[in-house]
């Protein structure tokens, strides 16, 4: 499943510009405690979080995640969005709740991260 196809499934819009949306998603993940994600994040994950601080981009970049997904119409400020573009991490915003987004990712066959 690519980022582009996932966007359709979760009714998401892209907040970043000119990103490669053909990247494959390896797994799905949801967590808002950034220290937790720093310790456990995985390469290629689609990460659902309500946090929009600049550090979200840094953590996603550290793990080379596939994309960041903000639930419930949450928007992100310009500075972290420009940083996400620099780091090549698409940032998506979906009208759905984190629960619904994860449910749809699982239904589409996206697995949990490998442990």
């Amino acid at each position, binding site marked *: 499943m690519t980022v582009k196809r996932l966007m359709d499934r979760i009714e998401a819009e892209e907040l970043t510009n000119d990103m490669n949306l053909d990247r494959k998603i390896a797994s799905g993940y949801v967590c808002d405690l*950034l220290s937790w994600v720093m310790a456990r994040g995985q390469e290629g994950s689609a990460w659902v979080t309500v946090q929009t*601080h600049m550090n979200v981009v840094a953590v996603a970049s550290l793990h080379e995640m596939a994309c960041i997904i903000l639930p419930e119409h949450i928007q992100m400020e310009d500075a972290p969005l420009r940083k996400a573009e620099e780091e090549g991490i698409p940032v998506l915003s979906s009208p759905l709740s984190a629960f619904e987004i994860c449910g749809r990712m699982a239904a589409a066959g996206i697995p949990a991260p490998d442990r």
Partner: protein
Amino acid sequence: MSLYYDLHIHSCLSPCAAEDMTPGNICGMAHIKGLQAIAVTDHNSARNLRACCESARHFDLLFLPGIELCTREEVHLLSYFPTLEAAEEMGRRCLELLPPMKNRPDFFGAQIVMNAQDEEIAREDALLIGALSIGFSEACALVRSLGGVPVPAHIHRMNGAIQMLGFLPPEDAITAVEVKEGDFVPEGYRVLRSSDAHQLSDISEPLYTLQGSTAADILDYLKRNH
């Protein structure tokens, strides 16, 4: 001058603090314990600072006006100000940035505003323990614009900057942090070890010192990381 300090104390204005955390009791206990400098840092409000400041003068304590802000990321950020007026201005900003929720004293606890004679003069209606609608970085900038110093509270614990944000955002140029006893002390920061007291018995013993003889000195000390 070396001062024994406790720069993180909640008064009875914080709903989670004991109701006997009155200005007189806090300052009296700090005095008995042998502290020389204290800060009262209620959640998102400055409304008890004036009374605490007056009470501190009575006990010959150096008083630093402060507020414990809760940012949008639910990071607890201590903020210390050079004057009561600056802290009160921050308090007014907080009221505008709090979620529109009223306190439920039966559930969260009372939010009591006092005078320096330990008499109740009002109750705060707005629920003070919510998250402000500004992010960590904006909050740091706002504190500095009022002449204050932002100091992330209990950084490794729940609602600490490192736990919530993974690491201290380098762009915010934090100079000082608060750590709990036994926690890892990061290098390159001024380090405060305060109590986060919510009841009188938790106010710090005279164990840790900082340098200065005025509020301005302490702020300078916290701003100059080494």
